[in-house]
């Protein structure tokens, strides 16, 4: 075998003076970078992904992971990863895979939007001492309500409201399946969702029995592979989501590599151990909006009319597609922007297909308003929400709630190394190897994730207070409170925001 001409991305180094030969790095690395050479730790730096597990668990701080200084000659056009991918493809004939959302330097619109604040002419509100409402209900809202008086003079709705999902904060955990992530990672999401009064989404991998105690904080997903979909599953959660597409890989299906299909995952998915779990690119019972309507109502019939969400990737024609989804009877439209994460996607797809979530929210919200059907469905926006500021901007652009996943994984130790598809995650998140998944203590990390949501909750309240409004409802679709900086007039027009200074 010849040595690969694709050079290592990182150099794992050990300070031999500091090293006490405790071998903790060998135990902790899921990638096999370190091994014992009899008198010292040996390093195979080609395997290093810079996930920093070894660094954090080295008691002597003897480990340093450097970007490989021996890169190719500097070239602004032929950069390191372009050349490296060509060399890898020449050696294997394969499609380079990647995990997480796109890391390419496309314009980040969230960073070109600024939020308004009150000064003198309208009072701001202090959220620490005044009530501030973040509660959000996802689902179809009637265009009008009829109220009638009961015998004892009380008012009540003449007709029942369509079913709603109650969220204490306008944030949900985006779908990540058992298989793509470990059961312990799913438990973290479920426990934190319960603690925060929000919901997690199973992704397409069934609902493990260990998650049943959290079923009131779960949305179950039906996708093209139909993994784990039983009548009990459909009825277990608060809603059912039909997954059409994913922001990181619009138009292509799922492909969970065989390395991540041990017995337990194979059992819930009902496929052989060690095969690749294939989710077809289309759902073969959905080739049109009419077909989508058929599946939406098949699910509603099977669940006594639970809310149905339809998840799509943000693509060029997203507004018209979303309109069709709403008219097909969906209660929620879930938009996933091209920065959205993935457990495995060809990097060529992840980095070059789709559109950013900011454009998609604005376009969909506009279109549904123009057509007078904005009340017919809620919008969840996801795909690269990094902070409460991103969440606030997404909501001001027109989303009802945001979905987060990468941020949630970061609370579990993830450093966005992007190697989720290998099944070697040293943090026990995107792996099924028992010695690795055992590291992720659900209780410990659920508390951290809960802390994150609480912190974002406080920040959202501070933002609302600065805006002088006391309810997230007043911010929803309120683009007057956003301004663009460094955006051209076409972009400002699409986003429906004025330039800063005007």
């Amino acid at each position, binding site marked *: 075998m010849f040595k690969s001409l694709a050079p290592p991305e990182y150099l794992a180094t050990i300070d031999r003076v500091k090293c006490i030969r405790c071998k903790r790095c060998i135990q902790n690395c899921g990638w096999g970078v370190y091994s014992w050479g009899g008198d010292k730790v040996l390093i195979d730096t080609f395997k290093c992904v810079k996930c920093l597990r070894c660094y954090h668990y080295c008691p002597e701080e003897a480990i340093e992971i450097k970007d490989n200084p021996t890169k190719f000659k500097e070239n602004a056009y032929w950069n390191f990863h372009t050349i490296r991918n060509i060399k890898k493809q020449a050696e294997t004939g394969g499609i380079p895979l990647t995990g997480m959302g796109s890391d390419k330097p496309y314009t980040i619109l969230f960073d070109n939007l600024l939020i308004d604040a009150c000064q003198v002419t309208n009072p701001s509100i202090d959220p620490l001492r005044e009530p501030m409402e973040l509660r959000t209900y996802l689902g179809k809202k009637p265009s009008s309500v009829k109220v009638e008086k009961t015998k004892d003079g009380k008012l009540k709705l003449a007709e029942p409201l369509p079913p709603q999902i109650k969220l204490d904060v306008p944030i949900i955990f985006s779908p990540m399946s058992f298989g793509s992530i470990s059961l312990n990672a799913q438990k973290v999401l479920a426990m934190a969702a319960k603690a925060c009064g929000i919901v997690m989404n199973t992704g397409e991998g069934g609902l493990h029995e260990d998650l049943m105690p959290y079923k009131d904080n779960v949305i179950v997903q039906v996708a093209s592979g139909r993994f784990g979909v039983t009548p009990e599953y459909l009825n277990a959660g608060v809603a059912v989501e039909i997954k059409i597409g994913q922001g990181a890989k619009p138009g292509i299906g799922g492909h969970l590599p065989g390395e991540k299909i041990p017995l337990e995952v194979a059992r819930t998915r009902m*496929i052989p151990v060690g095969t690749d779990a294939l989710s077809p690119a289309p759902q073969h019972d959905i080739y049109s909006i009419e077909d989508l309507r*058929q599946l939406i109502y098949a699910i509603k019939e*099977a669940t006594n009319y639970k809310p149905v969400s339809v998840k799509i990737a943000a693509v060029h024609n997203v507004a018209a597609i979303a309109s069709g989804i709403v008219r097909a009877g969906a209660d929620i439209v879930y938009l996933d922007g091209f920065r959205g994460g993935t457990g495995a996607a060809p990097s060529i797809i992840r980095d070059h297909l789709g559109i950013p979530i900011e454009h998609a929210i604005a376009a969909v919200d506009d279109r549904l308003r123009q057509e007078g059907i904005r009340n017919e469905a809620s919008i969840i926006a996801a795909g690269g929400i990094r902070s409460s500021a991103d969440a606030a901007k997404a909501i001001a652009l027109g989303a009802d709630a945001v979905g987060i996943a990468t941020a949630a994984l970061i609370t579990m130790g993830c450093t966005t190394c992007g190697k989720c598809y290998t099944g070697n995650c040293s943090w026990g998140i995107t792996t099924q190897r028992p010695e690795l998944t055992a590291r992720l203590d659900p209780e410990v990390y659920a508390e951290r994730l809960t802390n994150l949501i609480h912190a974002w909750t406080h920040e959202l309240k501070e933002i609302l207070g600065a805006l002088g409004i006391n309810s997230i409802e007043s911010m929803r679709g309120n683009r007057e409170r956003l301004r663009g900086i460094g955006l051209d007039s076409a972009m400002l027009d699409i986003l429906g925001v004025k330039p800063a200074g005007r």
Partner: protein
Amino acid sequence: MVEIDAKGAYYRDLNKKVREAVEKGEKEIVLKNVNGQYYIGDGLRGKSTIVVEGVPGNDLAAFMDGPTIRIKANAQDNIGNTMNSGKVIVEGNAGDVLGYGMRGGKLHIRGSVGYRVGIHMKGNKKQAPTIVVGGTAGDFFGEYMAGGVLVLLGLSNDGEPLVGDYLGTGMHGGTIYIRGEVEKKNCGAEVGVLELDDEDKKVLKEVLTDYCSDLGLKLEDIMSKGFKKLVPVSARPYGNLYAY
């Protein structure tokens, strides 16, 4: 036995009546004058038998878990979509995408079927789905198949070819049995064509005995012609597609 008249009924009302009858513990429910109503038996559980007189609409027995449905005429698309257990017997022909993602139970079709039948069927040691088609099948029969048993008999082909192209494309589990000859050019690259062994014969006999008793056919007549077996050649057909 209870009779429900489906004439002019909206599917939601019809299915509600069926569900209520099943919940009451009716063993046999006869639906008269069915004419294209969707979702009959959708998500239904229990052990009842439903007899459909007329042509039912799409997504019959979707997510169904237990009951038996007998259709005394032709049927449409998406029968047994993600079905978990139970049985659907169609005495005529049926449409496209039957048994999509099916997890268990049986579809017994007397006549021919359309495209993409039995795709992404699953199975494990505890349960596995079975589809038997009496006539011919269109393209993509058994696509992405991951488990279970698909049988194609070609008893009456009306001049149609026995099976379309892309047979078993992407197959990575389960078994397809075809009565008659299979040309390699019709098969997906992931499929190997083999002769039956003793275990196969046992499985086939069991499956077809049940099929024959449902549809009044003779097992000897069906077994008079030889079968071929299709299985995946690799558990990971796309294992080498990616560079890590």
